[in-house]
Every structure is written in C-alpha cells, then in structure tokens.
C-alpha cells in the first residue's frame, strides 16, 4: 500500500524544573494514502506533542530526542529549514487544537488563507483570492466573507475557516488536533462530518486527534491509543472494537458509553495518569493496570505486531489469553 507518513520510534522530551518529562516516548505508527487514523488518549498523554513533533513545531523547553518522521520518504526531523518550510502546508497541514486562537486577530481571514497560498505557490494575488473564496465555499462559508476579521465569526465558523486554511495548498496529510474543542455538540458533529467529507472527496490522509472514542471509532479506519506518552495499541478500528488487546484499551472501551447499547455499564478507570517527569523504566500503565505483575514494574514492554496490522505493547501478549 501507499504509505504517506511513517513515524518511527519518535521520542520528545520537555525540560522542566523538576526534571525531564518524557512526554512522548518511542512512538511508531504509519498512515496510508486516503486513510483516517484516530489518535486517542486522556488529556496530557502526549497527542498534541506527537502532532507538533511531526510538524517540527516543538520548541524549547521541548525537544525531539530521537526517531524519524518520514513524509513520503523524506525525514522531516532532519530536513533543512528551507526544505521544511516548503513542505509545511504544501504536503502537511494542521487544524489546530483551538481554531479560536489559531487565527490572527488583526488580519482578515482572507488575508490569512491567501498568505499560505502565496507563500507556497507562484500565483497572482487575484488567483489566490479566487481560490480562497472557493475554499471558503467548500467549508460552507460565503466566499465574500473573506474580508471579515476572525472575531466577526462564531466558534464553529472559525473552525471551518481553519479547515479551509488547512486545505489551501492541497496537502496530502492533514492533522486535526481536537479541532472541535469548545464547540457545542451539534457544531462538533457538523465539523467532524465536514472533515470526513473532505477527506473522502480529496483523498486526504488524516490524523484525527480526539478523546471522544465513540466518535473516532465511527469515522476512522484505524485507531492508535496513547497512554502517558506511549502508543499502547494501534490497529484497524474493527480490531480495536472487537479484539482490543491492551488492558488500557479495554478499560478505555469500558469507560466510554455505547449509544447502540444504553444498557452497557460504564466503568471508569481507577487511579490517575502518572507524572511523566523522571518516569522510571517500567510499563507506564502499571500503576493502574489490574493485571500488572513484577516484570511490568521493571521494564517497558516492546510495541510489536501481534496480528496482521495490529500492534500493542504488553507483557501478557502471547503469554496466554487475557482478554
């Protein structure tokens, strides 16, 4: 198949007053053309850090300490600043976590969308404006509103503007980082439906970051589940739903309501996410894992393929049936 993005052993650390926070460690996954991957996990588990590492937007006190991010075979981490600048937006773009703040308040939205086109493509201003209007129409906003300032839009509309901006240069890969935070449920659903629609129409590869498991399972082809800086399981959505291997994934599934089955008992996960500063070498889930045993406290299990396209990291894997 046609791999667009391949992340290999990515680790990103933050320097803090108390020590090194290993916000992302040894993360690997890949993404095919036209595929939608849901990246899911509790708040603070490192989803945004993964996204920013891929885009090389991590700044002091953070640092990508190891790993490769191959975008169509080219390593973004090692790319020169000039190559990076030309690849950003043209090949990979982002719909940020809060689109509310992602638009510069003193420029019109048209200016901001046009800017990205004019940086990357050798077109006239008129042409860029024409495309900007088309893009706005594409996300359901009147093209003539390109002259408006961000504050003249509602939250949902700003989110649409951010989507239009992300698509401005026909990227191959779009990362949507919880881009519906702060919107009401109905608007959230509309925005997600819009992203899904555009993804199909333009054959985009999308990484959809979220902590809404039911939503992600409904629209993504594959799912990667993160816990405390690690991806603990990565598999096609079907496999996750029917045959989740990792204790955390199972707990997460049990913790989310199921609209098809209102009788289902929702079980919350006891305990809380560990502090990632100076985290000892061990399975990061061991403090909350009901199945933890000695080895889990001394080593971090390897993230490996357990079935075709189904990866997970747990010592119980292959030991026997634990699901």
């Amino acid at each position, binding site marked *: 198949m046609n791999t667009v993005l391949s992340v290999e052993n990515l680790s990103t650390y933050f320097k803090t007053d108390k020590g090194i926070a290993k916000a992302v460690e040894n993360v690997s996954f890949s993404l095919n053309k036209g595929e939608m991957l849901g990246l899911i996990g509790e708040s603070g588990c490192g989803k945004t850090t993964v996204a920013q590492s891929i*885009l090389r*937007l991590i700044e*002091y006190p953070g640092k990508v300490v190891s790993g490769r991010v191959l975008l169509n075979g080219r390593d973004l981490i090692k790319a020169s600043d000039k190559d*990076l*600048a*030309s*690849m*950003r*937006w*043209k090949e990979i*773009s*982002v719909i*940020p*976590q*809060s689109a509310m*703040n*992602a*638009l*510069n*308040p*003193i420029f019109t939205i048209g200016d901001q969308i046009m*800017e*990205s086109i004019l*940086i*990357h493509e050798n077109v006239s201003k008129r042409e860029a404006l024409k495309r900007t209007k088309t893009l706005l129409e594409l996300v359901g906003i009147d093209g003539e509103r390109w002259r408006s*300032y961000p*504050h*003249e839009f509602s939250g949902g509309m700003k989110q649409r503007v951010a989507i239009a*901006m992300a698509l401005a240069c026909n990227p191959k890969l779009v990362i949507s980082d919880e881009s519906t935070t702060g919107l009401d449920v109905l608007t959230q659903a509309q925005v997600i439906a819009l992203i899904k629609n555009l993804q199909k129409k333009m054959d985009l590869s999308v990484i959809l970051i979220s902590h809404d498991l039911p939503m992600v399972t409904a629209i993504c082809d594959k799912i990667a589940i993160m816990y405390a800086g690690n991806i603990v399981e990565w598999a096609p959505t079907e496999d996750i739903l029917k045959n989740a291997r990792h204790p955390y994934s199972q707990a997460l599934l049990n913790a989310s309501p199921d609209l098809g089955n209102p009788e289902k008992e929702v079980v919350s996960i006891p305990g809380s996410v560990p502090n990632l500063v100076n985290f000892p070498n061990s399975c990061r889930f061991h403090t909350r894992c009901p199945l933890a045993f000695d080895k889990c406290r001394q080593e971090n299990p390897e993230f490996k393929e357990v079935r075709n396209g189904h990866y997970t990291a747990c010592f119980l894997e292959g030991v026997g049936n634990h699901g």
Partner: protein
Amino acid sequence: MLGKFIAGKFLQYLIVIFLMLTLNFLLPRLMPGNPLVFLAGEDVGFMSSAEKEAILDKYGLNDSIIEQYGAYIKDIFTGDFGYSYQQKRPISELLMERLPWTMLLTGLGLVLSTIIGVMFGAISAWRRGTKTDANLLTVFMFLSAMPSFWVGMILVSIFSAQLGWLPVFGAESAWSNYSGIDRIIDIGKHLILPLATLILISVTSTFMIMRYSMLNVLGEDYIMMAKAKGVKEKVIKYKHAMRNALLPVATVFMLSLGFTLGGATVIETVFAYPGVGRLMFESVLSRDYPLIQATFLIITFSVVIANFLADLIYPLLDPKVGSRNG
C-alpha cells in the same frame, strides 16, 4: 458609520470637558476661607482694600454665581486664564512661554523612550531565556530603580562638571542672541541631559510592557500556525507578532501623551528647564492658586484630548475595537 462614531465620541468628550471646567470653577468658590486667597494668592493679606476691591471686581465676585460662571467660560475660551499676582503677569502669557519647552522635552522623551523600549522589549522576548534577555532585563530593572533627580545629577556631574561638554541648566543660553542653525544647536545641547534623564527613567515601563506583551503573543496559537504554514521567521516576527504586541504599548503611549503637557516636574527642576512642570512646582511653592488651577486645567484638558485621539486611532490598530464601537 465612522462619522457617527466620531461624532458620538466627540459629544462624550465635550461633556467631560464641560464637567471638568465646571468643577474647576466651583472648587475655589466652595472651599472654605476667603475666595480672594484662591484668586490672588496669600499675598492678599498685604493688599490694600482698594486692591482687594479691584480683584473682586475683576472676577465679578460680587455678581451672581450664574453671571460669574458665564464670564469664566468666556474667559477660558478666549484664552484668558487670569492673572498671576505673584509673577505679576497674565497666566496665559506664562503658559505660552513654558508650553513649547515642555512639549519639546516630554514629547520627544515619550516618543524616544517608546521607540527604545519597544525595540529592546521585542528583542528580549524574541531571545527569551538567553543571555541577551537576562542582560537586558538587568539593565532596564536597574534603570527603573534610580530616582530621576539622582540620574540627572550624575549626568550633570559627568557631562557638564567633569567633561564640560554640555550646559548645566536652562533651555538655551541666555543673552547669546544665537539665531538659525546656531540657536537650534544651542537648544539641542541644553536638551540632551534632561532628555536623556527622562528617557533613562521612563524607558523601563515600555520595555517591560513590550517584552511581556510580545512573550504573550509569541505563545499564541496563531504564531505557531504561521510557522506551520511555512511563513518566514522574519515575517512572523514583524508582521504577525509585532502589531499584536504593540497594542498594549499604544494604549500606554496614548495615556502618557495626555500627561506630557504637565511636563516633568523633577527633571525640569533639576535642570532649571523652563517647562510647565517647573512652573507648577513654583506655583505650588508660592501658593499661587490661579496659576496652579490653570496648569491643572491645561493638564486635564490635554489628558481628555489624548483620550479622544486614542479612541479615534485605536480602531485602526485593533479591528476588534473598531467593529465593537462602530
């Protein structure tokens, strides 16, 4: 829409000015004690009754309060601020003499310290956490901790007393009859030390505001988005970040602008600079009430006008403000 906005603001400020004039009129008349003292100063005790009568007449203190008020307003708008019995001169004449010097010193001081503060504040924020940032912070904090009279005296002792490069006091050399370019150079030489003192003591606030505001802006998502979009570092700094970061600085600049006509009392006094600040200081020392009142009136007036200007200019800087009001 814009016309209506300006007209609305104008009306608002007209009301403020009217209230301010009325207060200024009522204050001396409502204060306990002899109104003569407030009009003529404490020399009143040494005046003959004929002189007192003349003053009472001049101010129409024997007329009804409405008549007095009408006359007062008329005087203000014809530029008649009364008479300084201490300086034995009309107050408007005194103010006209002092205002240009004050505007030169404090106006230039405000503009230069804003430019310097903005420049270094931005650099400090852009290099956050580096040695440059730490050094700049130290220097500016040190400057802000020094009292202005002390800075002034140090500068005088170095550049005037020790090196003899610059004059010690005044706004220009007395009895020199310089003209044209020579006079400008002479005025410039007199201006350097008070101006430098003023900048040194006031630059830190702009520096701190700019640094803080730039740091905030740099942490905004739209800056990260600009980076993700592949916008060049320089364009991000100057186009995306600078204008946003300047908004709080612009606010403070406008507020300070209103106070420039009040002069810089301490500095004008240390350098015997003939500005409004020193005039105010002298008038307070000698309890020259009409003069005190007139200088206060000038300052309030200019604060109100600066606020009006700020209201007009701010929408041009921040589109949010523009549409909310207009």
